[in-house]
């Protein structure tokens, strides 16, 4: 038996917890931006002007937000204060809400 198995931990490292919280926020932001972009031709046009296509800008903004928030949460250790199991629940809930939010939006609007 490995020595680490004896001392089971329910804690995540600052990097993992920080990037999990960042991912949860980013996926919700992704859906919110899709909604706003879809209902605002001005924003859609502005995003297109930044990279040549609104979708490219959308993806880049998501990536910058994910990495940026992840690094901030990692250095401040703010996500480590959240219980690991709760953090997992937050991630699953955020992904489910974000995915359903996209499908329902495009189905009905």
């Amino acid at each position, binding site marked *: 038996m*490995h020595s*680490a*198995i004896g*001392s*089971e*931990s*329910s*804690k*995540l*490292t600052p*990097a*993992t917890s920080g*990037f*999990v919280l960042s*991912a949860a926020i*980013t*996926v919700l932001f*992704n*859906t919110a931006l*899709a909604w706003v972009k*879809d209902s605002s031709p001005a924003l859609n046009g502005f995003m297109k002007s930044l990279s*040549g*296509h609104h*979708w*490219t800008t*959308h*993806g880049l903004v*998501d*990536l910058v937000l*994910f990495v940026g928030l*992840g690094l901030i949460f990692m250095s401040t250790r703010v996500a480590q204060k959240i219980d*690991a*199991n709760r*953090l*997992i629940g937050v*991630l*699953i809930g955020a*992904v489910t809400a*974000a*995915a359903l939010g*996209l*499908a329902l939006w*495009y*189905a009905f609007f």
Partner: protein
Amino acid sequence: MPLNISSSDAILLAHAAFGVTGCMAALWVFVEALNARPGNADRLQLAALVAAVCMAAAWICGGYWYVHFYPPEKALILKGPWPFAHNLFMETKEHLFFITGILAFLLPIAAREKLYASPAARKLVLSIAALIAITGLAVEGAGAVINHGVKLALLHDVSKGAR
């Protein structure tokens, strides 16, 4: 036999192939995490890296194809019998894929935890891997519907011309 494969075809097929491989790598991570022990930690991290690299490649190939080659297909779909193949399936897919991508980039970070010693880390990696596989396969399925939307539009045009 001459192979008439355009760059558009190759990029589109590479996008789908990388996406499926990324989903399979996520399932590989899931299985390794179910059996997490010190002996398979390196293999689990490798699988997580494969998932992330494949999803990044799928993102680049799919994005390039969507921006440069999709507009004529979109016009066909919208004039055909299945306009929802674009309005619902492509619109959802192109944004849902970002979620799959973000999760795929998160996976190698979470996989660096000692899963064999931390039940929470193990549960986290299982959750991320499952979410990648589920959302990734949903994106793949949407791709098939979009493809069928183009096919129906073309068949619709041909059958109208034959009448």
